[in-house]
């Protein structure tokens, strides 16, 4: 059975592995401090949006005070910074630091998605549409620095225009606008203001496109996290207000500059390398980012498939799909239901959450073949039932445990031991809750452990949330009430939490032996042919 635990071999895999370990270590610390709901690393995209709104609101205020003109621009910025420091200055600082925060969130978000291997297959669209976001954020930020018209703006303006002139696409070199104070026109600042406003609006449009293939995208940071972030920005604005350099003087070359390294790291490169080299660097970097989803090793699990004979159009799969890959359409066969599920294969990541949500996916079916209304062709539910039974057959002892784990969390192979069987899944929510009932009621094991990614950070976005809700009886399909909850353990653990998972299972097993029998005629199961007291993973 195909398993996707790591990203494969090669340098890329080693890099991803190291980065993933680093992220998971920091995330574990932040989980303890913030709790999983407020963990900033779980809400990088939403925080990016929050910074965007702070930039927008503060930018509107700054724009009210801003004058477009070669001398007026600097004076107006200085007025708000010095004379109206208590409001205009704070707004300017919020504008700057929130912009920097946006770059920081964007960079960490991108790095994290790369580390967690969440950019391939059906996720290519979200990754690729993130690249123009980078460009637009930099266009907006750099033109913002330009508008102040201080020495930094002069440096940025001349270097930027010379950089573009290198392309030779303009009729006349645009850097000639900055030859002398006399060649500089006030209207140029009007154009600049226009670009500085249009770029963020375009950015919003691209962000909307970026999220088109994500169901229920999280664009609003948790209130507490947003409040803490805003407070941090305000305090920073008072402690270290954003200030200008001396006014621009085109007769002088700026000497020492306090660059914003979030937005302007390419400018020193322009000083030390040719403009062509910097274009090549930017082009290659952009191309690499765009091409990353298709770099080997290529992985694309088969998309979920609908079995119309078993689909009653209940919508649960469509509601649970994290990537909008399932839509409900009018019935196309003679069955007496209004709708049927339909999978858009290009959007499906093969997580199997839909199969886990299907009410027909019950292993108790024996009269007819086990066929779910929707299932993964490569990791089907009949195969899962066979696997569970095979694993159970290999278990012996008084505290037999079957562990269901997500391939993207702790690899379940690592918890296999005497009396412990392991079954891996593409996502923990790919497991229909009826399987737990099946295992305990058929005496296939004495306890079931459900493990998956850390709370708030599911590889497939909603797997942990949906599974918890199903176990708690708040989301269909529920775990039946008759299932003794003491015999079910949930452990949410990232791949770095192997030891914690093992410890939890070791603590769980003695508790099982203390529990009263949950089956009327509970007996020590007879040894089955070929059974080995050693458990073993069939994942």
């Amino acid at each position, binding site marked *: 059975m195909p398993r996707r635990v790591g990203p494969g071999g090669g340098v890329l895999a080693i890099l991803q592995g190291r980065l993933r370990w680093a992220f998971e270590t920091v995330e574990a610390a932040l989980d303890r401090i913030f709790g999983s709901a407020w963990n900033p690393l779980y809400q990088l995209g939403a925080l990016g949006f929050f910074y965007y709104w702070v930039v927008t609101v503060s930018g509107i205020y700054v724009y009210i005070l801003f004058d477009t003109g070669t001398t007026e621009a600097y004076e107006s910025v200085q007025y708000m910074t010095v004379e109206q420091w208590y409001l205009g200055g704070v707004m300017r600082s919020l504008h700057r630091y929130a912009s920097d925060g946006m770059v920081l969130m964007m960079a960490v978000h991108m790095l994290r998605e790369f580390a967690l291997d969440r950019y391939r297959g059906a996720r290519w669209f979200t990754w690729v549409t993130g690249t123009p976001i980078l460009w637009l954020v930099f266009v907006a930020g750099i033109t913002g620095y330009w508008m102040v018209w201080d020495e930094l703006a002069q440096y940025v303006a001349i270097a930027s225009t010379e950089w573009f002139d290198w392309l030779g696409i303009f009729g006349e070199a645009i850097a000639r606008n900055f030859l002398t104070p006399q060649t500089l026109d006030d209207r140029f600042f009007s154009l600049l203001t226009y670009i500085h406003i249009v770029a963020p609006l375009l950015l919003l449009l691209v962000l909307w496109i970026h999220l088109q293939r994500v169901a229920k995208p999280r664009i609003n940071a948790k209130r507490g996290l947003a409040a803490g972030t805003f407070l941090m920005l305000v305090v920073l604005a008072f402690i270290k207000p954003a200030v200008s350099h001396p006014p621009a003087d085109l007769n002088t*070359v700026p000497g020492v500059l306090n660059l914003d390294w979030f937005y302007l790291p390419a*400018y020193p490169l322009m000083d030390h390398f040719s403009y062509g080299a910097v274009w090549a660097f930017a082009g290659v970097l952009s191309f690499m980012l765009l091409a990353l989803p298709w770099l080997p090793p290529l992985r694309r699990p088969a998309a979920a498939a609908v079995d119309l004979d078993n689909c009653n159009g209940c919508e649960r799969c469509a509601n649970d799909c994290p990537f909008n890959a399932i839509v409900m359409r009018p019935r196309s066969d003679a069955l007496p239901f209004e709708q049927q599920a339909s999978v858009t294969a290009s959007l499906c990541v093969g997580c199997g959450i839909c199969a886990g949500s299907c009410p027909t996916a019950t292993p108790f079916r024996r009269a007819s073949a086990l066929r779910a209304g929707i299932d993964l062709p490569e990791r089907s539910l009949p195969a899962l039932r066979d696997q569970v039974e095979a694993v159970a057959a290999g278990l012996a002892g008084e505290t037999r445990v079957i562990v269901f784990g997500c391939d993207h969390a702790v690899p379940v192979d690592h918890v296999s031991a005497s009396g412990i069987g392991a079954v891996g899944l593409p996502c923990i929510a790919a497991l229909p809750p009826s399987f737990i009932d099946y295992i305990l009621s058929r005496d296939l094991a004495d306890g079931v452990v459900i493990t998956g990614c850390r709370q708030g950070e599911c590889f497939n976005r909603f797997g942990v949330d949906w599974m918890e809700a199903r176990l708690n009886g708040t989301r269909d399909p529920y775990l039946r009430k008759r299932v003794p909850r003491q015999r079910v353990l949930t452990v949410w653990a990232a791949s770095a939490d192997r030891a914690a998972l093992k410890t939890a299972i070791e603590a769980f097993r003695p508790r099982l032996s203390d529990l009263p029998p949950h089956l009327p005629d509970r007996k020590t199961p007879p040894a089955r042919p070929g059974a080995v007291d050693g458990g073993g993973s069939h994942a």
Partner: protein
Amino acid sequence: MHKIARYLGQAVVYGLIAALLGYFADTPAYRHADADKAQLTLSLAHSGKHVRECRRRSAAEIAALPPNMRKPLDCPRERLPVLVEVELDGQIIMRDSAPPSGLFGDGPSQIYENFVIPIGPHDLAVRLRDSDRVDGFDYQREARIVIAPRQRFVIEFRAEAGGFRFATRAEPAAPSPAATWLTRRSGWRPRNRAARSSRR
């Protein structure tokens, strides 16, 4: 983790993020230009002469043309490249032939070059050839210049203004006293607000 310990932990994390944002927003400082150097910028956009002389059409030729195309002169579209030479203290620091721009070679030739030069006095000579002559130049200008630290000395060319122009350096403004600790860094003095407003 205890509630107070969690809040303290959060404060530390926010403090670290703020420190990261605050520090890299303007630090470390970057030295773009040294104080003992200056910059010479040469910029021109000038069309060379046509590749051959214009020819006056005869009356019969003009009459044979469609009414909207009856021009007395028959001129080629293509222009000659422009040759520019810059000499500093007796040394040729640039000699470049810029081809005409445009798909049909009928646009202006463009040159934009920066040179880092030492401060102090220099003998500067710039020359330009835009015709099909083999030797010599059609425009030239020589001058003894004194370059100040970090000065940006601009050489422009405008044929309609007689050729090369050396942009003169404006007198530097007197350093303004710091009004507040904010202005100490930028050297800015608040101006008369009314004067500023009147320019809106």
